């Protein structure tokens, strides 16, 4: 459409100078809703993050680098991010299976199981951490099962993994479930009439359709896991260089009144999280195009 044609039609109140970034829209109210969105986002997200970065920059780039590269901080960042990624991947697999079961089968207690998926959302994380620690300790119900093989779960990095899987599960299930629900049964039937085995149908037809939702779920579970504090500190054992997570290190710094140091670690975490989420988003955009959800 030509610009002239648009201008004839556009409401008079649209300020001319906003047109360089504003695409023409028939929906009125851009000014007030955009203003509200930006203000709200600033108060809740942008300003606090800016203050965080400002606080950290008291140390200067050199200072932040020095804090971030101390062996103990590096180890903690490694523990935090690697275990978060691992937990998100485990959830991708088992969360999809849970969603699959909830969508495809009828069984007694299904509603109860469906509701239970949300428990990690609702439970205070400290409660979850204490419960998990008790269960997975070598003398706990589940920990005792592994004890004969000399596998210790609670108070090791494995314990952190269990806690992060616990809190991340609902994200994957709740993003995959509706997509699975909406998936056309006819598409699976078409695949079967064309001679595909059940496995081929799942791998070639169902999973590609789930990919974008699954990536969203994984991104959410990962983001949640990186920031998790409450449940992890109870089960991790918190041994420096082994099972100490970065958020705990931040709290330690705060308790020592080293606000700038805490902010420096936080800024580094912010940076890594941002890059990771950006990568997942790019992957998601690609898969949406690839799998025809555009």
């Amino acid at each position, binding site marked *: 459409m030509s610009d002239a044609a648009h201008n004839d039609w556009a409401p008079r109140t649209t300020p001319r100078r906003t047109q360089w970034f504003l695409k023409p829209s028939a929906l009125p109210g851009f000014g007030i809703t955009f203003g509200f969105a930006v203000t709200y986002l600033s108060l809740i997200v942008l300003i606090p993050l800016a203050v965080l970065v400002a606080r950290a920059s008291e140390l200067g780039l050199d200072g932040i680098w020095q804090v971030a590269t101390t062996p103990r901080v590096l180890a903690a960042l490694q523990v935090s991010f690697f275990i978060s990624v691992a937990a998100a991947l485990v959830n991708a697999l088992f969360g999809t299976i849970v969603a699959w079961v909830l969508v495809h089968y009828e069984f007694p207690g299904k509603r109860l199981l469906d509701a239970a998926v949300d428990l990690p959302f609702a439970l205070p994380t400290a409660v979850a951490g204490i419960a998990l620690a008790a269960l997975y300790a070598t003398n706990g119900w589940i920990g005792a099962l592994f004890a004969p093989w000399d596998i210790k779960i609670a108070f090791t990095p494995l314990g952190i993994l269990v806690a992060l899987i616990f809190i991340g599960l609902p994200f994957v299930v709740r993003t995959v479930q509706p997509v699975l629900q909406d998936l056309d049964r006819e598409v699976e039937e078409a695949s079967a009439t064309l001679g*595909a085995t059940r496995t081929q149908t799942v791998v*070639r037809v169902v999973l590609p359709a789930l990919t974008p939702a699954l990536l969203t779920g994984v991104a959410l579970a990962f983001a949640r896991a990186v920031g998790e504090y409450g449940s992890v500190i109870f089960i991790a054992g918190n041994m420096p260089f082994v099972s100490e997570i970065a958020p705990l290190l931040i709290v330690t710094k705060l308790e020592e009144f080293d606000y700038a140091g805490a902010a420096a670690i936080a800024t580094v975490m912010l940076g890594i999280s941002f890059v990771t989420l950006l990568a997942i988003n790019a992957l998601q955009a690609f898969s949406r195009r690839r799998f025809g959800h555009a």
Partner: protein
Amino acid sequence: MAIAIRAEGLAKSFNGTAAVRNLDLEVKPGELLALLGPSGSGKTTFLRLVAGLESPTAGRILFDNEDATILSVRDRRVGFVFQHYALFRHLNVAENIAYGLRVRPRATRPADAEIRRRVADLLELVQLAGLGKRFPTQLSGGQRQRVALARALAVEPRVLLLDEPFGALDAKVRRDLRRWLREIHDRTGHTTLFVTHDQEEALELADRVAIFNLGNVEQVGTPDEILDHPATAFVAGFVGEAVRLPVNAAGSSLQIGPHQLRLSCGNVTGPAELFVRPRDLALANDPQPAIPARVLAVRRTGPARRAELALADGLPPVEMELPAGHAARKGDILPVTLVNLRLFASR
């Protein structure tokens, strides 16, 4: 006579509700058979039973005199086309068509070059050459349905099953695709079953039509047989815009409301149902037995003019095609007679 598909005493019920009951049907090789009926008459369930997408509660299905009931969907080698296309959205058109070949076990899978050649041929056949790289979301409804058909043909099915293939398309596209489907069928010669609730579509397109009602087949026959010699009252009422009139038959005369019409009622006596289509009525010439009918309205339907007539108080109004140039107006009384008699004893 060879039989391509035979259903014997086929029954299917869902949670106690019968969708198909004790159904027998024979499909000849290479014929285009339409399954026509009101919604809920079991035609789609029957089609899905043939495909193996549902398993029968009783009875069996034979393909070429070989029991297919025990075969799974993937072993039946049917081409199924769904009303809403059911294309794979993440695959482009060429990949959609190649799907059935690519999922074959390595031993029977054609080589890549062969698959590409077959896909190109099929794209040509469904008049979509050059669109192989498009994704389904980038195609119109009619194009999508043609891709679905090409995908079904790619596996060289023993029988082609189409479930309301044009149901989601607009009238113009439907008509075009209907002719085109007939051409494809004449060229490829697949035994084809297609479900529709549109009788115009069924009667124009099919070699034979099976009329479904309440989970069973009322009549199977050519479009001419179905239209001219309906076997049951249901068929007479279902096809060809018929109006049902309660009448009384007495050998050599027919009582319609207060009127007596002298004509032979065949072997029907007593209370009966008369099915009247617009072409079954005509203006009577003087010596002919006639009923005085009051004109309620005159309407234009396509090239013809039709009069809506009241034969008697309390009877539903019937329609009659008027001869060209006839100056009937609302309120006139016309002498009309029955040209065709479709009479069934009341049950």
